[in-house]
Protein backbone atom coordinates (compact mmCIF):
# COMPACT_ATOMS: atom_id res chain seq x y z
CA UNK A 1 0.00 0.00 0.00
CA UNK A 2 1.33 3.39 -0.95
CA UNK A 3 0.90 6.72 0.72
CA UNK A 4 -1.51 9.22 -0.77
CA UNK A 5 -0.21 12.56 -1.93
CA UNK A 6 -2.45 15.36 -0.68
CA UNK A 7 -2.44 18.97 -1.90
CA UNK A 8 -4.52 21.27 0.25
CA UNK A 9 -4.71 24.78 1.66
CA UNK A 10 -4.15 25.31 5.35
CA UNK A 11 -4.72 28.74 6.86
CA UNK A 12 -4.40 30.25 3.40
CA UNK A 13 -1.12 28.57 2.52
CA UNK A 14 -0.78 25.80 -0.07
CA UNK A 15 0.46 22.64 1.62
CA UNK A 16 1.44 19.21 0.33
CA UNK A 17 1.94 16.10 2.38
CA UNK A 18 1.93 12.31 2.22
CA UNK A 19 -0.67 10.41 4.22
CA UNK A 20 -1.54 6.83 4.88
CA UNK A 21 -5.02 6.38 3.39
CA UNK A 22 -6.51 5.62 6.81
CA UNK A 23 -4.86 8.57 8.53
CA UNK A 24 -7.16 11.19 9.97
CA UNK A 25 -6.83 14.86 9.13
CA UNK A 26 -6.05 15.43 12.82
CA UNK A 27 -3.10 13.04 12.70
CA UNK A 28 -1.88 14.62 9.46
CA UNK A 29 -2.04 18.09 10.99
CA UNK A 30 -0.24 17.05 14.16
CA UNK A 31 2.22 14.43 12.97
CA UNK A 32 2.95 15.32 9.34
CA UNK A 33 2.58 19.10 9.41
CA UNK A 34 3.57 19.81 13.03
CA UNK A 35 0.45 21.87 13.59
CA UNK A 36 -0.13 20.58 17.10
CA UNK A 37 -2.68 23.20 18.17
CA UNK A 38 -5.57 20.88 17.29
CA UNK A 39 -5.85 18.33 20.09
CA UNK A 40 -7.03 14.76 20.26
CA UNK A 41 -9.38 14.26 23.17
CA UNK A 42 -11.62 11.34 22.29
CA UNK A 43 -10.92 10.46 18.66
CA UNK A 44 -14.61 9.76 18.15
CA UNK A 45 -16.21 13.13 17.48
CA UNK A 46 -17.55 13.65 21.00
CA UNK A 47 -15.21 16.22 22.56
CA UNK A 48 -14.51 18.79 19.84
CA UNK A 49 -10.86 19.38 20.86
CA UNK A 50 -9.80 18.69 17.26
CA UNK A 51 -12.29 21.15 15.69
CA UNK A 52 -11.16 22.76 12.44
CA UNK A 53 -13.03 24.56 9.69
CA UNK A 54 -13.09 22.59 6.41
CA UNK A 55 -14.36 24.52 3.37
CA UNK A 56 -16.22 26.85 5.74
CA UNK A 57 -17.79 24.06 7.83
CA UNK A 58 -16.90 23.28 11.42
CA UNK A 59 -15.85 19.62 11.66
CA UNK A 60 -13.96 17.31 13.98
CA UNK A 61 -10.66 16.66 12.23
CA UNK A 62 -10.57 13.22 13.88
CA UNK A 63 -13.63 12.33 11.77
CA UNK A 64 -12.07 13.42 8.47
CA UNK A 65 -9.61 11.28 6.55
CA UNK A 66 -6.46 13.15 5.57
CA UNK A 67 -6.88 12.36 1.83
CA UNK A 68 -10.29 14.06 1.97
CA UNK A 69 -8.47 17.37 2.38
CA UNK A 70 -7.31 17.18 -1.25
CA UNK A 71 -8.19 20.49 -2.90
CA UNK A 72 -10.04 21.74 0.19
CA UNK A 73 -9.44 24.71 2.50
CA UNK A 74 -8.59 23.93 6.11
CA UNK A 75 -8.55 26.54 8.89
CA UNK A 76 -6.88 25.60 12.16
CA UNK A 77 -6.17 27.36 15.43
CA UNK A 78 -2.71 28.27 14.13
CA UNK A 79 -4.35 30.66 11.65
CA UNK A 80 -6.60 32.43 14.14
CA UNK A 81 -4.24 35.13 15.42
CA UNK A 82 -2.96 37.73 12.97
CA UNK A 83 0.77 37.44 13.58
CA UNK A 84 1.28 38.50 17.18
CA UNK A 85 -2.15 40.14 17.36
CA UNK A 86 -4.66 37.85 19.03
CA UNK A 87 -8.09 37.31 17.51
CA UNK A 88 -10.79 38.98 19.66
CA UNK A 89 -12.00 35.51 20.70
CA UNK A 90 -8.53 34.63 21.99
CA UNK A 91 -8.26 37.98 23.79
CA UNK A 92 -11.67 37.57 25.42
CA UNK A 93 -10.89 33.99 26.49
CA UNK A 94 -7.87 35.41 28.33
CA UNK A 95 -9.76 38.33 29.86
CA UNK A 96 -12.61 36.14 31.08
CA UNK A 97 -10.30 33.34 32.25
CA UNK A 98 -12.24 31.03 29.96
CA UNK A 99 -9.57 28.36 30.14
CA UNK A 100 -7.64 26.48 32.73
CA UNK A 101 -5.69 23.53 31.37
CA UNK A 102 -6.20 24.79 27.81
CA UNK A 103 -6.64 21.42 26.13
CA UNK A 104 -10.15 22.16 24.86
CA UNK A 105 -9.37 25.79 24.05
CA UNK A 106 -8.22 25.48 20.39
CA UNK A 107 -11.36 23.53 19.57
CA UNK A 108 -13.60 25.95 21.43
CA UNK A 109 -11.99 28.90 19.69
CA UNK A 110 -12.42 27.38 16.23
CA UNK A 111 -16.01 26.39 17.01
CA UNK A 112 -16.72 29.90 18.30
CA UNK A 113 -15.12 31.43 15.21
CA UNK A 114 -17.32 29.30 12.96
CA UNK A 115 -20.36 30.47 14.92
CA UNK A 116 -19.49 34.17 14.74
CA UNK A 117 -18.61 33.90 11.04
CA UNK A 118 -22.14 32.62 10.42
CA UNK A 119 -24.00 34.54 13.12
CA UNK A 120 -22.40 37.74 14.44
CA UNK A 121 -25.09 38.31 17.06
CA UNK A 122 -25.96 34.98 18.68
CA UNK A 123 -28.08 34.66 21.80
CA UNK A 124 -26.57 32.96 24.83
CA UNK A 125 -28.77 29.95 24.13
CA UNK A 126 -27.49 29.77 20.56
CA UNK A 127 -23.89 29.88 21.80
CA UNK A 128 -24.55 27.13 24.32
CA UNK A 129 -26.18 24.83 21.77
CA UNK A 130 -23.55 25.56 19.12
CA UNK A 131 -20.76 24.66 21.57
CA UNK A 132 -22.48 21.52 22.90
CA UNK A 133 -19.95 19.42 20.99
CA UNK A 134 -16.95 20.98 22.76
CA UNK A 135 -16.23 19.48 26.13
CA UNK A 136 -14.33 21.39 28.83
CA UNK A 137 -13.67 19.65 32.14
CA UNK A 138 -12.16 22.68 33.91
CA UNK A 139 -14.18 25.85 33.59
CA UNK A 140 -17.79 24.86 33.90
CA UNK A 141 -18.49 26.59 30.56
CA UNK A 142 -19.94 29.79 31.97
CA UNK A 143 -16.76 31.81 31.45
CA UNK A 144 -16.44 30.41 27.94
CA UNK A 145 -19.96 31.49 27.05
CA UNK A 146 -19.32 34.97 28.48
CA UNK A 147 -16.07 35.26 26.53
CA UNK A 148 -17.79 34.31 23.28
CA UNK A 149 -20.64 36.75 23.88
CA UNK A 150 -18.14 39.51 24.66
CA UNK A 151 -16.00 38.73 21.61
CA UNK A 152 -19.14 38.78 19.44
CA UNK A 153 -20.00 42.24 20.77
CA UNK A 154 -16.49 43.47 20.08
CA UNK A 155 -16.47 42.05 16.55
CA UNK A 156 -19.80 43.76 15.87
CA UNK A 157 -18.27 47.04 17.05
CA UNK A 158 -15.32 46.56 14.70
CA UNK A 159 -17.68 46.13 11.78
CA UNK A 160 -19.42 49.49 12.24
Amino acid at each position, binding site marked *: *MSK*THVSTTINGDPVEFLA*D*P*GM*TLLDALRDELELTGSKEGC*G*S*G*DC*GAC*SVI*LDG*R*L*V*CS*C*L*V*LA*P*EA*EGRRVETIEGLANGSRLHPLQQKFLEHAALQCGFCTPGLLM*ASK*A*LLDANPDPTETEVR*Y*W*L*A*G*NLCRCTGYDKIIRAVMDAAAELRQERV
Partner: protein
Amino acid sequence: MSQLDYLAPVTPEEAVRALGAAGARPMAGGTDLLVQLRAGRTRPDVIVDLKRIAGAIGVRQEAGGFVIGAATSGAVLGEHEALVKAWPGVIEAANLIGSTQVQGRATLAGNLCNASPAADSVPAMIAARATCVVVGPGGRREVPVEAICTAPGKTSLSPGEFVLEIKLPPRPARASDAYLRLIPRTEMDIAVAGAAVNLVLDAQGVITEAHVGLGAVAPTALLVPEAGQALVGSKLDEAALARLDAAARAACRPISDKRGTAEYRTKIAGVLARRAAAIAYKRAGGAA
Protein backbone atom coordinates in the same frame (compact mmCIF):
# COMPACT_ATOMS: atom_id res chain seq x y z
CA MET B 1 -5.34 -0.64 9.11
CA SER B 2 -2.15 -1.28 7.16
CA GLN B 3 -4.10 -2.65 4.19
CA LEU B 4 -6.54 0.23 4.01
CA ASP B 5 -6.95 2.10 0.75
CA TYR B 6 -8.94 5.27 0.04
CA LEU B 7 -10.79 5.98 -3.20
CA ALA B 8 -12.83 9.05 -4.10
CA PRO B 9 -14.79 8.25 -7.28
CA VAL B 10 -16.47 11.08 -9.16
CA THR B 11 -19.30 9.15 -10.84
CA PRO B 12 -21.77 6.56 -9.48
CA GLU B 13 -20.42 4.03 -11.98
CA GLU B 14 -16.87 4.47 -10.70
CA ALA B 15 -18.16 4.10 -7.15
CA VAL B 16 -19.95 0.85 -8.03
CA ARG B 17 -16.72 -0.50 -9.56
CA ALA B 18 -14.71 0.56 -6.50
CA LEU B 19 -17.25 -1.03 -4.17
CA GLY B 20 -17.02 -4.28 -6.12
CA ALA B 21 -13.62 -4.93 -4.51
CA ALA B 22 -13.48 -7.29 -1.55
CA GLY B 23 -13.67 -5.47 1.76
CA ALA B 24 -14.83 -2.16 0.27
CA ARG B 25 -17.06 0.09 2.37
CA PRO B 26 -18.83 3.25 1.23
CA MET B 27 -18.35 6.41 3.28
CA ALA B 28 -20.74 9.35 3.22
CA GLY B 29 -20.08 11.74 6.14
CA GLY B 30 -17.87 9.21 7.93
CA THR B 31 -19.08 10.12 11.41
CA ASP B 32 -20.00 6.50 12.16
CA LEU B 33 -17.54 4.69 9.88
CA LEU B 34 -14.40 6.42 11.17
CA VAL B 35 -15.40 5.80 14.78
CA GLN B 36 -15.96 2.11 14.02
CA LEU B 37 -12.68 1.97 12.13
CA ARG B 38 -10.77 3.39 15.05
CA ALA B 39 -12.46 1.07 17.50
CA GLY B 40 -11.57 -1.92 15.29
CA ARG B 41 -15.25 -2.79 14.84
CA THR B 42 -14.90 -2.66 11.08
CA ARG B 43 -11.79 -3.52 9.09
CA PRO B 44 -12.40 -2.50 5.49
CA ASP B 45 -9.72 -2.89 2.86
CA VAL B 46 -10.99 0.06 0.86
CA ILE B 47 -12.95 3.13 1.89
CA VAL B 48 -14.96 4.50 -1.01
CA ASP B 49 -15.69 8.15 -0.26
CA LEU B 50 -18.94 9.24 -1.91
CA LYS B 51 -18.45 12.99 -1.42
CA ARG B 52 -16.76 13.65 -4.78
CA ILE B 53 -19.51 12.05 -6.85
CA ALA B 54 -21.25 14.78 -8.86
CA GLY B 55 -24.48 15.68 -7.07
CA ALA B 56 -23.64 13.69 -3.93
CA ILE B 57 -23.57 16.88 -1.89
CA GLY B 58 -26.65 18.99 -2.42
CA VAL B 59 -30.42 19.16 -2.65
CA ARG B 60 -32.37 19.53 -5.89
CA GLN B 61 -36.05 19.96 -6.47
CA GLU B 62 -37.45 17.48 -8.95
CA ALA B 63 -41.02 16.61 -9.94
CA GLY B 64 -42.35 18.59 -6.99
CA GLY B 65 -40.24 16.70 -4.47
CA PHE B 66 -36.68 16.86 -3.20
CA VAL B 67 -33.66 14.75 -4.12
CA ILE B 68 -30.92 14.74 -1.48
CA GLY B 69 -27.45 13.52 -2.41
CA ALA B 70 -26.02 10.77 -0.21
CA ALA B 71 -23.17 12.91 1.13
CA THR B 72 -25.25 15.99 1.99
CA SER B 73 -24.56 17.04 5.57
CA GLY B 74 -27.14 17.98 8.16
CA ALA B 75 -25.80 21.54 8.11
CA VAL B 76 -26.53 21.86 4.39
CA LEU B 77 -30.03 20.41 4.87
CA GLY B 78 -30.79 22.84 7.69
CA GLU B 79 -29.84 25.80 5.52
CA HIS B 80 -32.13 24.77 2.62
CA GLU B 81 -35.17 26.97 3.22
CA ALA B 82 -37.59 25.26 0.84
CA LEU B 83 -36.68 21.84 2.22
CA VAL B 84 -37.10 22.95 5.83
CA LYS B 85 -40.47 24.50 4.96
CA ALA B 86 -41.76 21.38 3.21
CA TRP B 87 -40.29 18.74 5.57
CA PRO B 88 -39.57 20.36 8.96
CA GLY B 89 -39.84 17.02 10.76
CA VAL B 90 -37.28 15.27 8.60
CA ILE B 91 -34.86 18.16 8.95
CA GLU B 92 -35.32 18.59 12.70
CA ALA B 93 -34.62 14.87 13.06
CA ALA B 94 -31.48 15.10 10.92
CA ASN B 95 -30.30 18.18 12.80
CA LEU B 96 -30.66 16.44 16.19
CA ILE B 97 -27.79 14.10 15.34
CA GLY B 98 -24.61 14.88 17.27
CA SER B 99 -22.91 18.24 17.63
CA THR B 100 -22.38 21.21 15.32
CA GLN B 101 -19.18 19.49 14.20
CA VAL B 102 -21.01 16.25 13.44
CA GLN B 103 -23.69 18.22 11.57
CA GLY B 104 -20.93 19.46 9.28
CA ARG B 105 -20.44 15.88 8.07
CA ALA B 106 -23.27 13.52 9.03
CA THR B 107 -25.79 12.56 6.33
CA LEU B 108 -29.27 11.07 6.00
CA ALA B 109 -27.97 8.22 3.84
CA GLY B 110 -25.24 7.43 6.37
CA ASN B 111 -27.64 7.60 9.30
CA LEU B 112 -29.86 5.13 7.43
CA CYS B 113 -27.17 2.70 6.28
CA ASN B 114 -25.42 2.63 9.66
CA ALA B 115 -28.63 0.82 10.62
CA SER B 116 -28.83 1.86 14.24
CA PRO B 117 -32.31 1.20 15.65
CA ALA B 118 -32.09 4.61 17.34
CA ALA B 119 -31.10 6.63 14.25
CA ASP B 120 -32.99 9.91 14.57
CA SER B 121 -33.58 10.71 10.92
CA VAL B 122 -34.87 7.27 9.94
CA PRO B 123 -38.33 7.32 11.60
CA ALA B 124 -38.82 10.81 10.14
CA MET B 125 -37.86 9.67 6.64
CA ILE B 126 -40.11 6.63 6.99
CA ALA B 127 -43.07 8.78 8.07
CA ALA B 128 -42.29 11.09 5.13
CA ARG B 129 -42.54 8.05 2.79
CA ALA B 130 -39.06 8.83 1.55
CA THR B 131 -37.35 6.50 -0.90
CA CYS B 132 -33.73 5.64 -1.62
CA VAL B 133 -32.08 5.44 -5.01
CA VAL B 134 -29.78 2.44 -4.65
CA VAL B 135 -27.10 1.83 -7.27
CA GLY B 136 -24.97 -1.25 -7.64
CA PRO B 137 -23.63 -3.83 -10.06
CA GLY B 138 -27.22 -4.77 -10.99
CA GLY B 139 -28.10 -1.20 -11.93
CA ARG B 140 -30.36 1.26 -10.19
CA ARG B 141 -33.42 0.61 -8.04
CA GLU B 142 -35.64 2.76 -5.87
CA VAL B 143 -36.87 1.37 -2.57
CA PRO B 144 -38.73 2.79 0.44
CA VAL B 145 -36.48 3.87 3.32
CA GLU B 146 -37.99 1.21 5.60
CA ALA B 147 -36.76 -1.52 3.25
CA ILE B 148 -33.09 -0.72 3.91
CA CYS B 149 -32.47 -1.74 7.55
CA THR B 150 -33.05 -5.38 8.43
CA ALA B 151 -31.48 -5.61 11.92
CA PRO B 152 -29.14 -3.53 14.08
CA GLY B 153 -26.11 -2.81 11.88
CA LYS B 154 -27.53 -4.81 8.96
CA THR B 155 -29.04 -3.62 5.68
CA SER B 156 -30.70 -5.19 2.68
CA LEU B 157 -28.08 -3.70 0.36
CA SER B 158 -26.24 -6.30 -1.73
CA PRO B 159 -22.45 -6.29 -1.96
CA GLY B 160 -21.37 -3.39 -4.13
CA GLU B 161 -24.61 -1.47 -3.67
CA PHE B 162 -24.91 1.92 -2.02
CA VAL B 163 -27.54 4.62 -1.49
CA LEU B 164 -26.91 7.40 -4.00
CA GLU B 165 -29.88 9.62 -3.20
CA ILE B 166 -32.77 10.05 -0.79
CA LYS B 167 -36.02 11.28 -2.31
CA LEU B 168 -38.73 13.13 -0.45
CA PRO B 169 -42.09 13.16 -2.24
CA PRO B 170 -44.02 16.23 -3.44
CA ARG B 171 -45.88 18.10 -0.72
CA PRO B 172 -49.58 18.97 -1.05
CA ALA B 173 -50.99 22.07 0.63
CA ARG B 174 -51.84 21.74 4.35
CA ALA B 175 -49.25 19.06 5.00
CA SER B 176 -46.43 18.88 7.53
CA ASP B 177 -44.43 16.61 9.77
CA ALA B 178 -42.64 16.54 13.11
CA TYR B 179 -40.12 14.39 14.95
CA LEU B 180 -39.54 14.13 18.68
CA ARG B 181 -37.12 11.98 20.61
CA LEU B 182 -36.52 11.48 24.30
CA ILE B 183 -33.01 11.77 25.68
CA PRO B 184 -32.13 12.29 29.35
CA ARG B 185 -30.31 15.55 28.58
CA THR B 186 -30.75 18.34 26.04
CA GLU B 187 -28.06 17.59 23.42
CA MET B 188 -25.54 15.04 22.20
CA ASP B 189 -27.29 11.81 23.11
CA ILE B 190 -28.92 8.75 21.58
CA ALA B 191 -32.69 8.40 21.55
CA VAL B 192 -34.41 6.34 24.23
CA ALA B 193 -37.37 6.44 21.87
CA GLY B 194 -38.35 8.58 18.89
CA ALA B 195 -41.57 9.26 16.98
CA ALA B 196 -42.25 10.97 13.67
CA VAL B 197 -45.67 11.94 12.36
CA ASN B 198 -46.46 13.15 8.83
CA LEU B 199 -49.93 14.56 8.16
CA VAL B 200 -52.00 15.86 5.24
CA LEU B 201 -55.16 17.85 6.06
CA ASP B 202 -58.14 18.94 3.99
CA ALA B 203 -59.47 22.51 3.96
CA GLN B 204 -61.57 21.80 7.07
CA GLY B 205 -58.57 20.51 9.03
CA VAL B 206 -59.61 16.87 8.75
CA ILE B 207 -56.62 14.53 8.46
CA THR B 208 -56.76 12.77 5.10
CA GLU B 209 -53.40 11.04 5.23
CA ALA B 210 -51.17 10.15 8.17
CA HIS B 211 -47.93 8.22 8.52
CA VAL B 212 -46.13 7.35 11.74
CA GLY B 213 -42.53 6.19 12.18
CA LEU B 214 -41.03 5.01 15.46
CA GLY B 215 -37.37 4.72 16.47
CA ALA B 216 -35.43 2.88 19.19
CA VAL B 217 -38.36 0.62 20.05
CA ALA B 218 -37.53 -2.33 17.78
CA PRO B 219 -34.49 -3.80 15.98
CA THR B 220 -35.15 -1.33 13.15
CA ALA B 221 -37.09 1.90 12.86
CA LEU B 222 -40.73 1.08 12.21
CA LEU B 223 -43.48 2.26 9.90
CA VAL B 224 -46.70 1.83 11.90
CA PRO B 225 -49.62 1.92 9.44
CA GLU B 226 -52.20 1.31 12.21
CA ALA B 227 -50.97 4.40 14.03
CA GLY B 228 -51.35 6.51 10.91
CA GLN B 229 -54.76 4.99 10.19
CA ALA B 230 -55.86 5.91 13.73
CA LEU B 231 -55.69 9.59 12.82
CA VAL B 232 -57.29 9.59 9.35
CA GLY B 233 -60.73 11.21 9.32
CA SER B 234 -60.12 13.04 12.59
CA LYS B 235 -59.24 16.60 13.54
CA LEU B 236 -56.78 15.19 16.04
CA ASP B 237 -59.28 15.03 18.86
CA GLU B 238 -58.50 13.16 22.07
CA ALA B 239 -60.11 9.94 20.84
CA ALA B 240 -57.86 9.93 17.76
CA LEU B 241 -54.80 10.68 19.87
CA ALA B 242 -55.67 7.82 22.21
CA ARG B 243 -55.98 5.46 19.23
CA LEU B 244 -52.62 6.71 17.92
CA ASP B 245 -51.01 6.21 21.33
CA ALA B 246 -52.37 2.67 21.62
CA ALA B 247 -51.37 1.71 18.06
CA ALA B 248 -47.87 3.10 18.56
CA ARG B 249 -47.42 1.19 21.81
CA ALA B 250 -48.78 -1.99 20.24
CA ALA B 251 -46.08 -1.83 17.54
CA CYS B 252 -43.18 -1.54 20.00
CA ARG B 253 -40.89 -4.49 20.67
CA PRO B 254 -38.00 -2.77 22.40
CA ILE B 255 -35.12 -4.10 24.44
CA SER B 256 -34.32 -3.01 27.97
CA ASP B 257 -30.87 -1.47 28.29
CA LYS B 258 -29.05 1.32 30.07
CA ARG B 259 -31.08 3.92 28.18
CA GLY B 260 -34.45 2.62 29.31
CA THR B 261 -36.57 -0.40 30.03
CA ALA B 262 -38.81 -1.95 27.42
CA GLU B 263 -41.87 -0.79 29.37
CA TYR B 264 -40.61 2.79 29.58
CA ARG B 265 -39.70 2.92 25.90
CA THR B 266 -43.12 1.61 24.95
CA LYS B 267 -44.98 4.15 27.05
CA ILE B 268 -42.77 7.00 25.83
CA ALA B 269 -43.23 6.02 22.18
CA GLY B 270 -46.97 6.57 22.57
CA VAL B 271 -46.47 9.91 24.32
CA LEU B 272 -43.98 11.14 21.72
CA ALA B 273 -46.30 10.07 18.89
CA ARG B 274 -49.12 12.13 20.44
CA ARG B 275 -46.93 15.18 20.84
CA ALA B 276 -45.36 14.89 17.39
CA ALA B 277 -48.85 14.56 15.89
CA ALA B 278 -49.94 17.77 17.64
CA ILE B 279 -46.89 19.64 16.28
CA ALA B 280 -47.32 18.29 12.75
CA TYR B 281 -51.05 19.16 12.83
CA LYS B 282 -50.35 22.73 13.88
CA ARG B 283 -47.58 23.11 11.30
CA ALA B 284 -49.98 21.85 8.61
CA GLY B 285 -52.37 24.65 9.51
CA GLY B 286 -54.82 22.69 11.65
CA ALA B 287 -56.38 24.53 14.60
CA ALA B 288 -54.77 22.98 17.67
